[in-house]
């Protein structure tokens, strides 16, 4: 490899010497901002180039004295610039292209078909990129009913969305695990801080779509972008400073049908440029406030040896989400050689969530009971950051860029149940009441598996009909009706719900990249060979602190706190709880408290409750200590790459990136002092340095006037998540009866990726592409059983999972193979007569096959979180005055999590994994969603927009082994919004 680079150096040097000719450069803008993909050609020659993402171009190697330079772009008038013969360098400055007058004149106003324009831009960027990349422009994204950037990128082939309460949150490329992918803002990988997820994947729902100028999704990497992206990389370029005064704003209002409550949004964008053209800026903000609601039921299958039900939960969620994002960018360009910029972005979401839970416990925990939980919490995410940069062009073809950036992402709970915002006791607040009783819907079996009566039962189960060994027993999964009788009332409380406890799960999670430094140097002197090299340093620090604050009945007051004494109210079911299933629980829902009763319950009870602050005596103390950690990470990366245009139809990009990672994770071990009856923490830490050496090759063969073939062989990696390599106590999950240790010796996963793609551009308005990919991944990280009970610092961890299953530990899987096919079609019927020419469609489809070798299963597994067939289809009508679009999104069921339940072999002491097949594994169910959006531009400045999401009301389903055995079923219903948009 070194020899290749050396050879390239020589080649570049040689070309530099010979290229002493005219160089023409400049920037092409439209009235909104830089215009990528504009064809820049020299008339009467074959020379030509296109503008880059920033609208810049550079033509070199011209030898003719006088020429006409032509700028052309779909949707814009062609512009021609005449230059006088001279040698050396010529900077044409900013060239403004006028939007094409399509001939549609309504009320004297010219309407430009924005759809075509935006998508054409995106298509051009896709075509010109050295890597396999898809681009969504702001104007395209604004057309879609996608409020956050995750939802916008799901329109790209092979992108799969992981949703939370119906809104996109994490993205995955080609169905690979979401934390295999990288998300960057202006090229910097963002810090991640999420309530639940401990991965490096950012929660996209905090970033509103309209703060972003372009979203570029790269499925193959080049050395100049961050290499920890096995799945792919999404880069969000925030809004560029404008080249003329710009003002846009929009307001919208609508309805969420599940919540039966309003939805509203608004945004503005304002930018201007100074008279001298030296200063320019843009600023924007966006808010989106929506009431949401979901009807959810969850079934808990307690056993790993059969599918007996232990619990049914009916969950009624209602909430209000407020997303507020803003950004600012300013540029100072004193001369063509110097350019300074500052960019800042901020995004945040508050989710004020109410959850009323009815839990039928056939056999969870301590006995048969029904629990009622009034749950309230405010989930608060805040992201902000920015960068300052300098660009220096000592010569037009040479660019030196330097920037310094800083980002922070934080999750915390809002002021519930205590009013003080800084009150550390606030968290996920649960107020719980319980009633012990006897269920009467069990199946009783004798020793031979025959049905028998209660008294003589050898086994007792609650089964769904499909799992019942006895014909005629069992509820269908869509209508589980628990039946029970009250306990004989020994004391008055036994027929009533009584207070068990109130608690808050506290969580503060923050990750900061205080300093990110980047230096890039590129030389595009020659048309045949360009090179680019750079260095990047990133410092990261973060922590996750979780705890449990508990309020219990004060033992000094033995009287029960009875549910009905606090005035519970009939639950507002918003048109019927689970009406999609025929409201099976109509009239059977228990009443719940008013919001004030819930929020004030602890304070109103005074001494009747006793506060158990988080500490060594907290139940599940180990679990919280094992889930809390802090870390620092430094990454130093360097790269060199070169673009070689070997022949007019063959070019390639080759280079290498190396990243050195230095990581330290700190966590605590719990030590028991049995002499003094105390328990204390010992801080532990572990560090690790590792290299990633990532050679990459992308090539492009122009196979015809409008078609090209691309290929790439690249190496990429995935850093272990911090929780996966933490020392100290294990995270104990009592729901799954797991103890999971971090592994301080965990290696990063590496992948060799091979990608091919054939692209054909049709009539400048269409694109058809076919591609395939293959990944060979070593050291994929998963959890496997660990027989040692000592924790990572050698402090003996006495906790052993009952029954001899000891603990799990993050491990590296030997290998995984992933292969897939992709097809993409984007087309506008503009050759058809009349109004038909406004119709168009975009469609994409990807199929992915995968296999994963893990030691605990004999056979190869599908890679978890990997959907085999994913498809998008959008049909649109895009006339100047009116556009309407229907978009469908389909995703196959996919394996989500393996059940690696193991039993200790008494002979060998080794864990034996019980389930070798997939019948106990978790799957995410089939999804098909349909959205619609329309825009009516009724005057020059105003347009009316309408959108409706989730028209199919597809539930989010997680199931165990087969769809008839659901674990989680969640309905979001339809969300609709009507808005007004103003553009100056």
């Amino acid at each position, binding site marked *: 490899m070194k020899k290749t680079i050396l050879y390239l150096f020589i080649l570049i040097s040689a070309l530099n010497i010979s290229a002493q000719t005219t160089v023409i450069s400049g920037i092409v803008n439209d009235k909104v901002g830089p215009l990528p993909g504009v064809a820049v050609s020299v008339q009467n020659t074959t020379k030509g180039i296109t503008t880059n993402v920033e609208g810049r171009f550079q033509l070199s190697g011209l030898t003719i004295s006088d020429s006409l330079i032509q700028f052309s772009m779909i949707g814009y008038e062609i512009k021609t610039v005449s230059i006088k013969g001279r040698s050396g360098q010529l900077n044409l400055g900013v060239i403004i292209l006028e939007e094409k007058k399509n001939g549609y004149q309504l009320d004297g106003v010219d309407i430009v078909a924005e759809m075509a324009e935006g998508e054409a831009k995106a298509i051009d960027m896709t075509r010109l990129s050295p890597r396999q990349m898809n681009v969504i422009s702001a104007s395209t994204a604004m057309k879609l009913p996608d409020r956050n950037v995750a939802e916008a990128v799901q329109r790209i082939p092979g992108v799969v969305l992981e949703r939370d309460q119906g809104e996109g949150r994490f993205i995955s490329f080609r169905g690979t695990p979401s934390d295999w992918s990288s998300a960057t803002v202006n090229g910097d990988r963002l810090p991640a801080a999420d309530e639940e997820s401990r991965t490096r994947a950012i929660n996209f729902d905090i970033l509103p779509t309209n703060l972003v100028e372009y979203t570029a999704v790269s499925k193959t990497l080049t050395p100049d972008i961050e290499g920890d992206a096995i799945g792919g990389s999404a880069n969000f370029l925030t809004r560029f400073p404008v080249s003329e005064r710009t003002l846009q704003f929009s307001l919208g209002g609508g309805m969420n049908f599940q919540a039966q409550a309003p939805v509203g949004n608004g945004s503005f964008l304002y930018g201007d440029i100074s008279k001298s053209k030296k200063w320019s800026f843009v600023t924007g903000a966006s808010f989106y406030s929506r009431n949401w609601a979901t009807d959810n039921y969850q079934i808990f299958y*307690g*056993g790993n*040896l059969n599918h*007996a039900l*232990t619990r049914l939960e009916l969950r009624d969620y209602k909430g209000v989400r407020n997303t507020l994002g803003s950004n600012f960018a300013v540029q100072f360009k004193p001369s063509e050689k110097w350019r300074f910029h500052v960019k800042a972005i901020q995004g945040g979401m508050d989710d004020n969530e109410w959850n009323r839970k009815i839990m039928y416990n*056939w*056999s*969870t925990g301590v*006995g*048969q009971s029904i629990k009622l939980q009034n749950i309230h919490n405010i989930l608060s995410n805040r992201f902000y950051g920015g960068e300052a940069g300098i660009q220096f062009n000592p010569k037009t073809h040479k660019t030196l860029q330097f920037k310094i950036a800083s980002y922070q992402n934080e999750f915390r709970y809002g002021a519930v149940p205590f009013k003080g915002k800084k009150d550390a006791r606030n968290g996920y607040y649960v107020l719980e009441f*319980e009633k*012990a009783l*006897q269920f009467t819907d*069990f199946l*009783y079996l004798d020793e031979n598996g025959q049905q028998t009566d*209660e*008294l*003589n*039962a050898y*086994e*007792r*189960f609650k089964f769904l009909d499909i799992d019942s060994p006895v014909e005629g027993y069992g509820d269908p999964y869509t209508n589980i009706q628990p039946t029970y009788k009250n*306990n*004989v009332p*020994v*004391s*008055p*409380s*036994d027929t009533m719900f*009584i*207070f*068990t406890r109130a608690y808050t799960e506290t969580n503060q999670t923050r990750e900061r990249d205080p300093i990110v430094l980047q230096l890039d140097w590129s030389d595009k002197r020659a048309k045949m060979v360009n090179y680019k090299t750079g260095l990047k340093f990133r410092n990261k620090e973060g922590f996750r602190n979780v705890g449990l604050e*508990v309020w219990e*009945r004060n*033992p*000094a007051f*033995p009287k*029960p706190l009875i549910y009905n004494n606090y005035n519970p109210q009939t639950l507002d079911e918003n048109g019927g709880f689970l009406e999609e299933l025929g409201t099976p629980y109509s009239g059977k829902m228990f009443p719940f408290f008013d919001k004030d009763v819930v929020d004030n319950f602890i304070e109103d009870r005074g001494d009747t409750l006793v506060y*158990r602050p988080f500490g060594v*005596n907290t*139940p*599940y103390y*180990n679990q919280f200590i094992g889930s809390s950690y802090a870390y620092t990470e430094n990454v130093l990366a360097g790269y060199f790459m070169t673009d070689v245009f070997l022949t007019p139809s063959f070019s390639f990009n080759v280079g290498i990136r190396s990243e050195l990672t230095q990581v330290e994770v700190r966590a605590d071990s719990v030590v*028991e002092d*049995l*002499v003094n*009856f105390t*328990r204390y923490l010992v801080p532990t830490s572990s560090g690790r340095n590792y290299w990633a050496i990532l050679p990459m090759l992308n090539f492009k063969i122009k196979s015809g006037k409008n078609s090209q073939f691309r290929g790439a062989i690249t190496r990429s990696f995935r850093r272990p998540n911090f929780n996966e390599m933490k020392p100290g106590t294990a995270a*104990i999950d*009592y729901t799954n*009866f797991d103890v999971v240790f971090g592994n301080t010796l965990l290696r990063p996963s590496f992948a060799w990726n091979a990608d091919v793609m054939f692209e054909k551009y049709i009539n400048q308005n269409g694109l058809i592409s076919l591609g395939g990919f293959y990944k060979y991944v070593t050291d994929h990280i998963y959890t496997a059983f660990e027989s040692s009970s000592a924790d990572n610092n050698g402090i003996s961890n*006495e*906790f*052993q999972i*009952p*029954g*001899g*299953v000891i603990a799990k530990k993050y491990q590296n899987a030997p290998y995984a193979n992933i292969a897939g096919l992709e097809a993409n079609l984007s087309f506008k019927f503009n050759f058809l007569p009349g109004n038909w020419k406004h119709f168009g469609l975009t469609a994409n489809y990807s199929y992915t096959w995968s296999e994963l070798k893990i030691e605990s299963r004999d056979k190869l597994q599908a890679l978890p979180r990997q959907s085999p067939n994913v498809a998008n289809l959008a049909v649109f009508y895009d006339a100047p005055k009116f556009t309407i679009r229907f978009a469908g999104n389909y995703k196959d069921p996919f394996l989500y999590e393996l059940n690696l339940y193991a*039993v200790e072999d*008494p002979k060998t002491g080794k864990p034996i994994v019980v389930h070798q097949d997939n019948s106990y594994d978790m799957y995410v169910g089939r999804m098909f969603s349909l959205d619609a959006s329309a825009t009516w531009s009724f005057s020059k400045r105003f347009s009316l927009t309408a959108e409706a999401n989730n028209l199919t009301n597809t539930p989010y389903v997680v199931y165990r082994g087969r769809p008839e055995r659901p674990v989680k079923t969640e309905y979001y219903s339809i969300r609709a919004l009507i808005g007004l948009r103003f553009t100056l």
Partner: protein
Amino acid sequence: MKSPLFFLSLAAALFSAQLEAQNEKKVMFIGIDGLRYDALVEANTPIIDSLKNVGLYTNDSWHLGITMSGPSWSSMLTGVWENKHLVTNNSYTNANYTNYPYFPKRAKECRPDLKCVQIITWNPMDDASNGTGGYVYNSGWDYSLDVGTHGQGLVTSAALTQMLDAELDVLFLHYDEVDVAGHANGFSPTVPTYMNAIEGVDQEIGQVMNGLRSRSNYANEDWLILLTTDHGGIGLGHGGNTNNERHIWWIASGPSVPNAEITGPDPGSYQLTGVNPVTLDNTPVLTDIAVTALDHLLDDNCNPETNATWNLDGKSWLDEGAYVEDKKDGFRFEVYPNPSQGKFTAVFESVKQDAAYSVYDQAGKMVMMGRASSPLMENNRIFFDLTGLEKGLYTIQIQNDGKSFSRRLIINQ
């Protein structure tokens, strides 16, 4: 001096122990949460078996209350039923420990210097004064340690630490993980993790016993070791009414304890309704644990069974007059359902041929005899049809393969 203990038996005379009068009486009570009796029989538990082999034990202890941990442990540790201690759930609301305290509190009324310690893994059982989420008060523990979710290994470690204390008189240990394993994957002899958990706790008890025997003054101490479970389990839970939840076991072992098995019919159904008082007097139940412990700890001036202020429900199995039906003979032998309307099944470890049986009423008069109907050799079961006898308490004696077995039966029509 000869022990005052003397056991009547239909089958055989009993071991009786020699004791030095000055030996200090002490109690170690080990509670294993949720250990179903048939699983204990099938599990490989050499330590528990060794305690059983020299001790007094029963596989026929019947739970008469709510088969949940809070009510169950309260009945065992107070010696009264739910209608007195009022603990009917795991939130311990309305608990009346004021009038019906834990047995160490009662024991201290007679022996104020007793040192009593509990080590538990389920925090509602902790003493409320500890501020760790426990609801129990008036318990009489000098120390109450909740090792919480840190596992049963810590119970053992903490117990071994306590063993070093020469002053220790009463130690209660609570092992919770068999119950957790049952909830996780099933309370059943067919569930490997449940059986593994039972075998695991057996090893823990082995360590505790080693610690006990290593006490410096062990030779001069008279430890009563009580080992029991609070309830059984079925499927993935308990709290219900099946025999597998209510039918529990316990073992008493120590120098003062004879070697015998106690059997008995079910004195009544769930939650104290329909209890046959005669049967209740003759069958081992939960409330007997505290009373047996008190009987061991206290001299005759503080008889737990007759103290009207204490008003305890249980009975001591260390009393003269408490009776045991047959000697421990190494055979597994069960009769079910019991009570029944007259049709019974007896299960043996092995059946050689048809069995002869005779049935005696409460006065000892033989009321029926015959040969049992064709035994199912493969299942080692013999069926008896006693329909036609009046309802009441009977004793059935079965001869098979040269051995004789007796059981008390209830016929209810």
